């Protein structure tokens, strides 16, 4: 008969490594289990890597980009310029260092004395790394070193737009802006959703009913007309930063109902779990139950919800900026950059304007895949299995 309770059956053939692996599984906290499951999902891991790269590109944008993305850093001699891809070899021979060709701008007879830019294949400009360039601020400190540049003139990996601004630099900064708006919006949504959804879910009853009505009412508000109205309200004098915060806050406000509903649902479910009743029967107060049982129980869900709402917020901001109701130059986000792509001229002649689109798609898809992967990793754990 059983004397001690048997844990995992340790058959004689079990190796030490197997035993340790099993013990790790038994003592793994929920976070560790979710991470272990997430790691096995290949598409999620790839998306996660891409997401990480993009985020780092955004954070270190001022360092990674050779020039200031605003008018300050523009190259007046090379407007609507095609991308300059560094190469190692040409007719004159190969070199260890990558180089690009210099460009010259002159008034040409052929085009009725309009500016024409020609590429001078004799003029090699070597790409250098860690060059000194425009000053920028990062993490509160001022730097002036950029990852790469050329010894003379400019290098435009993604080409330039109609005023000569470097699209590569603008893209990287745009990623940062979009992410910043997204983060701010998500944070605002989240805090509001947690409070409002939390109250509705925990207390239930009449309070829940009233909050539900309010939430649903807000959800029905159509975004575009709302923004059009708001855009009319925004004074022209507001600086781009203020405008930036304003847009983020508004987007956060629009999105909280969805999150709040999720929080409420999670709470309603968890509140009726038997282990909550067990805590109540020990005389635990509401604070203890919320802090010790309810909140941890849906932390994983909330993180998944946050990651999944991120692309929606980025999309909202992009869409709004695209139609001119959101951020405006000089603050550029991916949406603002996409605004410039709407003319036929661009479509026919300056296709490199579309490069930011790929970054945008990559960013949103990466979020979606990571969110999905997280949700799949979190779900199996929460369903009780026999």
């Amino acid at each position: 008969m059983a004397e001690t309770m048997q844990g995992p059956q340790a058959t004689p053939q079990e190796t030490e490594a197997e035993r340790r692996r099993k013990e790790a599984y038994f003592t793994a906290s929920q976070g560790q289990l979710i991470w272990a499951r997430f790691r096995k999902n290949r598409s999620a891991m790839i998306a996660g890597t891409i997401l990480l790269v993009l985020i780092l590109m955004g954070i270190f944008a001022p360092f990674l980009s050779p020039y200031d993305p605003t008018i300050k850093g523009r190259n007046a001699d090379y407007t609507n310029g095609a991308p300059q891809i560094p190469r190692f070899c040409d007719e004159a021979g190969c070199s260890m260092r990558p180089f690009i060709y210099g460009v010259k701008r002159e008034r040409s007879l052929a085009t009725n004395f309009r500016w024409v830019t020609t590429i001078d294949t004799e003029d090699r400009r070597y790409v250098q790394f860690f060059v000194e360039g425009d000053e920028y601020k990062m993490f509160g400190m001022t730097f002036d070193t950029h990852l790469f540049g050329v010894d003379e003139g400019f290098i435009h990996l993604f080409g330039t737009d109609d005023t000569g601004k470097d699209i590569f630099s603008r893209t990287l900064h745009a990623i940062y802006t979009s992410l910043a708006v997204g983060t701010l919006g998500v944070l605002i949504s989240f805090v509001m959703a947690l409070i409002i959804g939390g109250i509705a879910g925990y207390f239930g009853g009449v309070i829940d009913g009233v909050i539900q009505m309010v939430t649903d009412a807000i959800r029905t508000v159509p975004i575009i007309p709302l923004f059009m109205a708001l855009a009319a309200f925004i004074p022209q004098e507001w600086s781009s930063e203020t405008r930036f915060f304003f847009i983020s806050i508004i987007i956060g406000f629009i999105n909280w109902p969805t999150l709040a509903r999720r929080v409420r649902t999670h709470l309603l479910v968890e509140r009726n779990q038997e282990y909550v009743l067990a805590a109540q029967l020990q005389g635990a107060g509401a604070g203890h139950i919320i802090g010790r049982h309810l909140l941890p129980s849906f932390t994983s869900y909330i993180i998944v919800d946050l990651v999944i709402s991120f692309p929606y917020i980025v999309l909202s901001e992009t869409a709004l900026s695209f139609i001119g109701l959101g951020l405006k130059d000089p603050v550029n986000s991916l949406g603002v950059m996409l605004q410039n792509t709407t003319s036929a001229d661009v479509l026919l002649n300056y296709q490199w304007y579309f490069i930011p689109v790929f970054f945008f798609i990559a960013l949103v898809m990466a979020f979606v895949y990571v969110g999905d992967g997280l949700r799949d990793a979190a779900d199996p754990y929460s369903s009780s299995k026999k």
Partner: protein
Amino acid sequence: MTAPLISVSDLTVRFHTDEGLVTAVDRVSFDIAPGEVLGLVGESGSGKSVTAKSLMRLNGDNTVYDPASRITVNLPDGPVDVLGLRRERDLRVVRGGAISMIFQEPMASFAPAITVGDQMVEQLLIHTTMSKAQAKELSIEMLARTGIPEPARRFDQYAFEFSGGMRQRAMIAMALSTKPRLLIADEPTTALDVTIQAQVIDLMKDLVRDFGMGILFITHDLGVIAQTADRVAVMYLGRIVETGTVRQVIRHPAHPYTLGLINALPKLSDLDAPLTPVPGDIPSPLNRPPGCVFHTRCPVAIAGCYVEEPAMRPARDGHLAACHLTEEAVTEGMTA
């Protein structure tokens, strides 16, 4: 000797899981003759549900059937190899046509937003060539047959308007309306009150007699098996450890697990007997013991049990047990 209704041979089912390839059913073989009730007894983790679902190919996408497994259903038109079926159309024959299944949670089998009658008619329309009116008539008749009062009125009601016992009867009615040759009952009475359970068991026995179909009755309750089944197979960790007629297995258990189960049951006839659990815990299916799957909990295990897997040896005519020890040795060892 008539051909069996269904013949399962060397069924091995594995699943792809996070932790690797898990064997849920290991070389299970049994036959069910027409009009026979075979009880499949086992506890959680024994693989009995997976076995049942395999007969209708209802297991999930991550299922891997071993190439050596065979499930053959003998229909009037000829035998059907269930595991070899590829197209949805062909699978329909075994799903609800020749084979029907009833489940433990009757609330889960009925769609909540459609009336019970509509669901029964839908099933008939899929599997037979009846008209809608004929299907309705047959459905009401089946509801009456399973003892539901006012069947015509109940036909138009929703599942939530039925009580637990009645829902189970309605599910039986629905399962039987296509006149299946084999009925698989997966823990049909576990969720019911004991007085309702008794009614449902009686109902099933009557139906077997009237319809002449076979039943695969899955449960963990040996008492229900004793009253309902003709033959029984005891499963543990995916293997069948003992099989025989109900009288043989319950009165003269030859396998230590079966004997352990019987001893662990509280019996009204002997209130002084101590409750003796089967020692230890069921191993995880990821960690199936070598040799005899039961040896880690077996009170009478010998050295050979760790190493060599026992074959099914006959204890008497028609009664087989997978144990290295003889029935006498087992009984002696466990009562000592």
